[in-house]
């Protein structure tokens, strides 16, 4: 608790991070704006809220997927809160003042956990409210099915933020760390392409997709699958043109384990970096 207070004190008195944090939480509310989208164009009368996106239990899937896209925004705060400690040399001063390296890392992780928790709680509340207003179903058992999407949401955020934490400790400069994050996304894509191209020829009995699910960003992406093709409206159209498909949209337990293992590795790697380096 003391460590969390120290970290929040640092963030709270920084105007930019304060604005970013509030901005992030406000943006979460912006999903409610989707409900007001209404298109009336002659015979076409389109009201997004009535297309079923806010139906329980589908809303859990839809909202967690959409709001998780905002996590990039929060990654900036995390990368900056580490990068600043290096550029201001305050990490050095913190250690001299009697914070141990492990405590320093823990204060950052507690802050991450606090944000993940707040964010998940907000998603839960907003979905309940939006669902309460627009859902066609409002029986309690239906409302509270598929809550595993919230678990997946929390794990997804935590995994992503620990990745950011590791990168910013590794690289020390905020801008470069963010750049590397973007680069890593591309690198994973290239590796996937290469694997598909070469590996499937060499060892055909191994499925490339099976291997690829172990890559950190891909594992994060797989946690919550895209919800759009699950919409009944979309499925109706697909059925009509004879392209009906079935896809598994559920949250896979293996996937959660993979992401949590990555998180553990990132935290441990961060600790080793901190411990080994001279400041």
């Amino acid at each position, binding site marked *: 608790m003391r460590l969390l207070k120290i970290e929040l004190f640092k963030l709270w*008195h920084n105007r930019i991070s304060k604005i970013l944090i509030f901005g992030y939480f406000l943006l979460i509310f912006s999903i409610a704006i989707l409900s007001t989208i209404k298109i009336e164009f002659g015979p076409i009368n389109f009201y997004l809220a009535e297309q079923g996106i806010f139906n329980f239990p589908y809303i859990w899937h839809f909202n967690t997927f959409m709001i998780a896209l905002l996590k990039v925004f929060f990654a900036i705060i995390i990368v900056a809160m580490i990068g600043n400690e290096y550029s201001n*040399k305050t990490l*050095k001063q913190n250690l001299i*003042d*009697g914070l*141990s390296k492990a405590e320093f890392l823990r204060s950052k992780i507690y802050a991450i956990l606090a944000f993940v928790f707040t964010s998940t709680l907000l998603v839960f509340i907003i979905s309940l409210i939006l669902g309460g207003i627009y859902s066609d179903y409002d029986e309690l058992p239906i409302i509270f099915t598929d809550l595993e999407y919230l678990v997946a949401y929390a794990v997804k955020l935590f995994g992503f933020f620990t990745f950011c934490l590791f990168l910013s400790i590794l690289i020390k400069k905020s801008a470069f760390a963010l750049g590397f994050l973007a680069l890593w996304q591309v690198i994973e894509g290239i590796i996937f392409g290469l694997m598909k191209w070469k590996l499937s020829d060499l060892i055909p009995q191994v499925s490339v997709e099976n291997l690829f699910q172990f890559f950190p960003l891909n594992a994060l992406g797989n946690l919550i699958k895209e919800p759009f093709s699950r919409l009944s409206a979309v499925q109706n159209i697909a059925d009509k043109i004879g392209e009906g498909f079935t896809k598994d949209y559920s949250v896979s337990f293996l996937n959660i384990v993979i992401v949590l293992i990555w998180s553990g590795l990132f935290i441990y790697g961060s600790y080793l970096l901190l411990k080994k380096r*001279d400041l």
Partner: protein
Amino acid sequence: MSNVILQLNNLTKKFGNLTAVSKLSLTINKGKVYGLLGPNGSGKSTTLGMVLSVVNPTSGTFKWYEGNLTSHQALKKIGAIIERPNFYPYMSALQNLKLICKIKQCSFDKIEEQLKLVNLWDRRNSKFSTFSLGMKQRLAIAAALVNKPDLLILDEPTNGLDPEGIHQIRKLILTIARQGTTILLASHLLDEVEKVCSDLIVLKNGVKYYEGTLDGLTKSQGYFEIAAINEELLISHLKEHSSLGKISKENQFYRATLTKELSTADFSAELQKAGILVTHFSKKQPSLESQFLFLTQTKENAATKN
């Protein structure tokens, strides 16, 4: 309770091929003012970095409070300023000190007193980024004192300051020293160390050259500067004298280094009795500066001979 705050035992740090600190052993006791003296690059900051847990030692150990506390627990009970003042630029002076209190787990009680001591109370709500270097350095001193430290470590506290800033900081250090705080002052400025410190550790190229009192270094090795009309008689007399060691000629004067206590009156009477007509005669205390050079050079010569 024991008086030992910090003990170093064969502490060594290598950066690749370069040995920054070599097998350094020291003891810091409560109640004294230590000077850690050495030219730039002699390993002072690296040594302090190691005991302050920001630099990992290559080998050797150090113990805080005889090993009764872990490093980071011990660091909460001391105050340290290294090279440049490091604070959060977007926070005010007061907020920065509050954060340090949270880390050190001490109360906010002393913040006002310390900010007044360093003359920054009026600027307590200004952002750190708006401070001049002198103010930043003074804030660093206030920050190092908020926990009423057992030991205050200062690394080159006047580095880069203008004469007025240097004067302010030195006055502050003297004030703090008089209050009875144990201080370890690292500096390459001899007069700075001479003015404040009672004990001295001399470091060069990471090797310890001297550890002891300041007086022990300067007083014991005073010398006489003499010139006489009958030079040969003077030389033979000096060479046979039991209280004198090395005899050398510097410019037109002979320099006779003392190995024992010998008063000016006694010695001049002796010379008169021997019939030596003295034209120049004075007893001198070597400055810390000349002692420092003497010490480091003789050690180096000895090392090259070996």
